């Protein structure tokens, strides 16, 4: 397809205002789980695509952890070549429907977009989502490369963003990939953590389906460290990528934390998202607090508090010990939460959970904070104000103050080097202390973002591919002594 109109002049491009992402009305969406951002229309996407200046040295690509060739897919889009744009995007990014929705573009590609220096950056995330959603609806029009089979088997442990990305990249290079997932359904944090209203689960499923069509096998209910050990996998696969996530919730360690009505964000969101407790026909229950306090200021806290609103909370509050400028959540998530009626108690820290005689939460006892000198993280250290104690009445508390490493895998593989916090140590290629075993995502870097995990998955896949080219396949090795082990994976 060719463009009928003559190309716009740079001045004309500069004259177009950034399009706004259409959103569901805040009052309405606070009562449902449908997606908040509705996506661009064709007309809006084509208009926005014209704003891109096609920089010869595109900063946006450097700003992207998976190095999507952004100018290329935008150019193909505005030329009207949607299949070409989709192929280009999918070639760089295994999960564009996901990243188009949950990436912090404002601090990555869009943060360094030349147009942002004078006015507003190109809405790269919205365009990515537009092209990716089009691709999901038009799979028949996409290029389907069939790579030559390498004959090498790679195990990917964990099916979150890092694992899925690595699996896609490895399959693209012709390797035989099996993903081991501890839960009954693949997707990791994309399925159990991020709520439906920000990332619909059928969108995630479609991304997973595309990998399965590309030949990736998924073994659910397989807990590495329990169902199979890492050495067992190592014996049967030519290489392994560990992407098990951070996993363990951190609690506040204050009195009353075991009262009924106190959840970790992991538990609350898993009940609602993975187990579908927000739907009418799920067996898994979740408490529906009328006055809910979520402790923490990150994206997970925003997901939890906005979920509580949707599950009928009349009052949903964020308690965060630093100020507004320090909130780690994306500005868009904070803005959306405020639009939906979430109250922010900033410079407030919890000191105890109060309960009634029957063991249910009745309030969160807090103290006011003020900011002192910057700490090691560069953020100003919060200090409590003497005599400022007060109680927020509530019937539910969700603790969203972070996660730490899950020792389930690492303690059953003593030869795997971990740091003092239990995160896996890797070299510059992403390889662990065990040859042929690579790792990435939160289990290496600590709790981070979807896109950083995907960046690790993509880089590690390239490193695994290079490593496999220099290492003999498993089948050439001597058989292990004793009885022949069961073949792991299909």
């Amino acid at each position: 397809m060719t463009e009928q109109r003559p190309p716009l002049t740079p001045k004309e491009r500069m004259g177009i205002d950034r399009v706004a992402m259409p959103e569901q009305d805040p009052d309405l969406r606070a009562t449902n789980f449908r997606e908040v951002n509705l996506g661009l229309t064709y007309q809006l996407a084509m208009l926005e695509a014209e704003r891109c200046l096609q920089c010869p040295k595109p900063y946006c690509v450097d700003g992207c952890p998976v190095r999507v060739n952004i100018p290329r897919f935008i150019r193909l889009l505005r030329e009207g070549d949607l299949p070409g744009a989709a192929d280009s995007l999918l070639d760089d990014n295994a999960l564009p429907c996901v990243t188009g929705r949950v990436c912090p573009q404002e601090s990555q590609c869009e943060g360094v977009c030349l147009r942002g220096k004078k006015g507003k950056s190109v809405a790269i995330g919205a365009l990515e989502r537009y092209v990716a959603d089009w691709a999901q609806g038009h799979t028949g029009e996409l290029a389907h490369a069939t790579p030559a089979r390498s004959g090498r088997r790679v195990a990917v442990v964990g099916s979150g963003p890092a694992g899925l990305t690595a699996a896609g990249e490895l399959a693209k290079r012709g390797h035989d990939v099996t993903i081991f997932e501890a839960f009954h359904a693949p997707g990791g944090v994309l399925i159990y953590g991020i709520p439906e209203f920000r990332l619909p689960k059928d969108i995630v499923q479609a991304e997973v389906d595309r990998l399965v069509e590309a030949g990736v096998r998924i073994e659910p209910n397989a807990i590495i460290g329990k169902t199979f050990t890492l050495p067992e996998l190592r014996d049967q696969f030519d290489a392994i990528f560990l992407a098990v996530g951070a996993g363990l919730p951190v609690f506040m360690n204050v009195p009353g934390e075991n009262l009924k009505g106190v959840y970790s964000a992991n538990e609350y969101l898993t009940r609602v998202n993975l187990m579908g407790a927000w739907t009418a026909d799920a067996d898994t229950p979740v408490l529906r607090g009328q006055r809910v306090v979520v402790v923490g200021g990150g994206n997970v806290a925003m997901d939890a508090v906005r979920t509580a609103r949707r599950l009928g909370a009349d009052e949903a509050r964020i308690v965060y010990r630093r100020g507004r400028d320090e909130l780690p959540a994306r500005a868009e998530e904070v803005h959306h939460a405020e639009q939906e009626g979430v109250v922010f108690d900033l410079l407030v820290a919890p000191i105890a959970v109060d309960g009634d005689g029957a063991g249910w939460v009745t309030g969160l006892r807090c103290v006011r904070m003020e900011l002192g000198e910057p700490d090691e993280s560069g953020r100003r250290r919060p200090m409590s104000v003497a005599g400022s104690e007060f109680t927020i009445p509530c019937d539910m508390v969700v603790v969203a103050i972070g996660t730490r490493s899950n020792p389930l895998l690492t303690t059953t593989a003593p030869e795997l080097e971990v740091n003092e916090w239990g995160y896996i140590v890797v070299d510059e290629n992403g390889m662990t202390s065990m040859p042929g075993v690579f790792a990435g995502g939160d289990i290496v870097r600590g709790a981070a973002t979807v896109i950083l995990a995907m960046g690790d998955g993509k880089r590690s896949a390239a490193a695994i591919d290079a490593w496999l080219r220099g290492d003999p396949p498993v089948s050439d090795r001597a058989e292990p002594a004793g009885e022949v082990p069961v073949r792991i994976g299909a």
Partner: protein
Amino acid sequence: MHPIVAKNQLSPNVTRLVVSAPRIAAIRRPGQFVMVRLGPGAERIPLTIADADAEAGTISLVVQSVGKSTADLVELGVGDAIQDVAGPLGRPTDLLESGHAVCVGGGVGTAVILPIAQELDRRGVAVTSIIGGRSREWVILEDQLAATGEVVACTDDGSYGRPGFVTEALRDALDTGGVDAVYAVGPVPMMRAVSELTRPYGVPTTVSLNAIMVDGTGMCGGCRVSIAGESRYACVDGPEFDGHLVDFAGLADRLNTYRSFEQAAMARREACRIGGRVEPVEEAAAASR
């Protein structure tokens, strides 16, 4: 999918399901559990592996029908299948190498005690099992336990065996002396009573905690229990703990978290079968809060 290859009723609401799960059958050890999800929309529930046959590739799950999820499970017949069985999870039981162990089982907990008694017996430890139930039909697995050593069956109503609670029979054993360890699994009040009883005797006592959990791998934190004042996870740090250190009151309280939901779900389940109508779960749950 995990087909059910055998099924039998152990007591009025306790059913034994023999389920195909070859990998788990080959590697499980006493004290470990699996997370079971019947199918789409179903809960994930933890069930202790009562027994396994590595040759046949099967595990035995003993299920007490107490809520909708367990009622749905025990309704399955031979040839039906469970969609998801994940495990084996939890730490295996820390077992004596020699000496004399008393295994105390209450109700369905007797199914958890059985693999422990079997392994102790295999190691050459002398085993006495004390098992109890409300009345005769609630005493389960007596014959299987008899193969591991002496069995004292107790019934609350005296309809079978020794009349009274298991703690009374245990007290006699402790007074006789020579008990090196006690393993107790059953309702929370029973495990608490056993732990309080053994404390003054200084006999190490292991209990298995049936906390509420979602994933079973340490991720949700829902199964946190207070052990010697420290918060620990039943799924990865347990499910077995030193009974002398467990905050049983806290555990019992947290186990009630979803009681109103469970009652509403059961009511809805019953109503579905007789074609009646009931209030939606949320309303019923809210009403009882």
